């Protein structure tokens, strides 16, 4: 088994002639926090979607724990340990906070239509386990008090925490966080950093896409910079901050923006 939890080799994605990602090679080490940054349209979210299985790659390969997962559908990847959040929390609006997290336990439980329909003992057993686990994750992100509220009645910051709890409930090995800091207050961001560190302590690898530079620099041990679908730099915070191409890209963006 490889020491990398995730590797991509020559990963490309072309949308109708438009190259969104161009031969990306990257390695994500187990048990650490990595981040992908880059200006708008750099292909960060596309890369995320390829890893999570929303899109299938045009060419190249994705290895998860050394296993090729290119053609594996998204839900299968979730069950082998790839979890993710979305830019917009994408909570289940027709459920309570607790139910959202319980739903996250889906790949870690088994009972199906028949057991559910007739309330067989297996369903009781699993259901008890599911709700205990869910409460554990809610407490971890600090939403224990809100468990019976409607998910969408929470303020945005807490919705994002709930989305993380839901992803954690799938008991992942690799957690992909898509702009977890967007729309949060400074205080909330600090709490988020703490949470991410605690997640690492649980032995889960975290890979995030983030716009917020201070957040990324403070957290990530490895940073990968994308621009126009290409990887232009890779390294720790210090190395990245000094990299000329990165500076050029970001300066350009600031001038434009």
């Amino acid at each position, binding site marked *: 088994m490889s020491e990398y939890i995730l590797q991509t080799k020559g990963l490309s994605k072309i*949308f*109708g002639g*438009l190259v969104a990602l161009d031969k990306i090679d990257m390695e994500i080490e187990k048990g650490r926090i990595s981040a992908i940054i880059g200006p708008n349209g750099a292909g960060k979210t596309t890369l995320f979607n390829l890893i999570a299985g929303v*899109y299938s790659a045009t060419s190249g390969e994705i290895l998860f724990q050394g296993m090729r997962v290119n053609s594996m559908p998204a839900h299968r990847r979730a069950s082998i340990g790839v979890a993710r959040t979305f830019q917009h929390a994408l909570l289940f609006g027709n459920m309570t906070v607790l139910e959202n997290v319980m739903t996250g336990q889906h790949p870690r439980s088994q009972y199906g239509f028949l057991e559910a329909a007739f309330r067989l003992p297996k369903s009781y057993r699993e259901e008890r386990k599911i709700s205990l686990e869910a409460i554990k994750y809610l407490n971890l992100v600090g939403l224990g008090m809100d468990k019976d509220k409607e998910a969408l009645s929470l303020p945005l910051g807490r919705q994002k925490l709930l989305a993380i709890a839901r992803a954690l409930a799938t008991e992942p090995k690799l957690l992909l966080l898509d702009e977890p800091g967007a729309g949060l207050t400074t205080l909330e961001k600090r709490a988020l950093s703490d949470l991410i560190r605690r997640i690492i302590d649980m032995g889960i690898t975290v890979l995030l896409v983030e716009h917020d530079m201070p957040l990324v620099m403070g957290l990530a041990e490895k940073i990968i910079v994308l621009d126009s679908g290409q990887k232009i730099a890779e390294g720790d915070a210090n190395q990245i901050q000094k990299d000329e191409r990165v500076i050029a890209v970001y300066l350009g963006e600031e001038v434009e923006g």
Partner: protein
Amino acid sequence: MSVDQFLQYLISGITQGSIYALVALGFTIIYAVTRVINFAQGEFVMLGGMLSFLLISSFGIPLIPSLILAVLFTAIIGAIIYLLAIRTAKKASVVSLIIITIGVSIFIRGFTREFLGVDSVRPPFFTGDESLTIFGALIRPQALWIIGTTIVVTIILHLFLSRTMMGNALKASAISTRAAAMVGIDSRVMALTAFVIAAVIGSIGGAVMAPLVLTSYNVGVMLGLKGFVSASIGGFKSPIISVIGGITIGVIESLAVGINWGPFTSSYKDAIAIVALLIILLIRSGRLALEERAD
């Protein structure tokens, strides 16, 4: 199948398809602007036919004024439907909106039956009923009127949508209500316009086809269904594709009768048209999925 026969099937199919197309146009324009599938579209067609019969045969009003009055009246009904039923239902889901329009159609149907009876009626032909010969195939003058009306309505609608301010506003509203609102287009006015246009097209269609295909209080059900299927083939996207969809369905049905072998017989012609729709939907679903992802 001889060449003459083939032409005859084709012409019958095109006539039939034009009828479906006129119904499909109404579905399309309302759907494009409001995302509502208006199941009362068939009733516009019915009203056009029944009212023109009433005015011509019972009140003895000449053809042209009768048609104008019938269309005007149906347009008002279209506006009322939007203002009273669709616009009031603000938070309604797609399914609720479908049911509302079904409620509207049941209401209109019941009303017409109450006042105009259950009998099928036939308004007089516009220009007689002596068949004309085209390349060895026979066609009735009223069928030419129907085909002609379909062409003219489609062209006018196309020009209206592409060449006028109002048309552009409608198209903008169809693409994104929010974006349209930002440039000062009131989506509610656009929706109202769409309903009125749909009612006008439906009733013109109804009035033109009635001499050929007869009309009664309940013709809207079947025509509505066929028009809906035709519009589905075009994905409710553009008027021209809907017209092509309608004519495709008409021709498929007609040729199925002509083949008269295996499942391709008159007994299954409706089913064949629907199977064609399903196949097109499934093929397009693959392509739609690709488009979505490219966004």
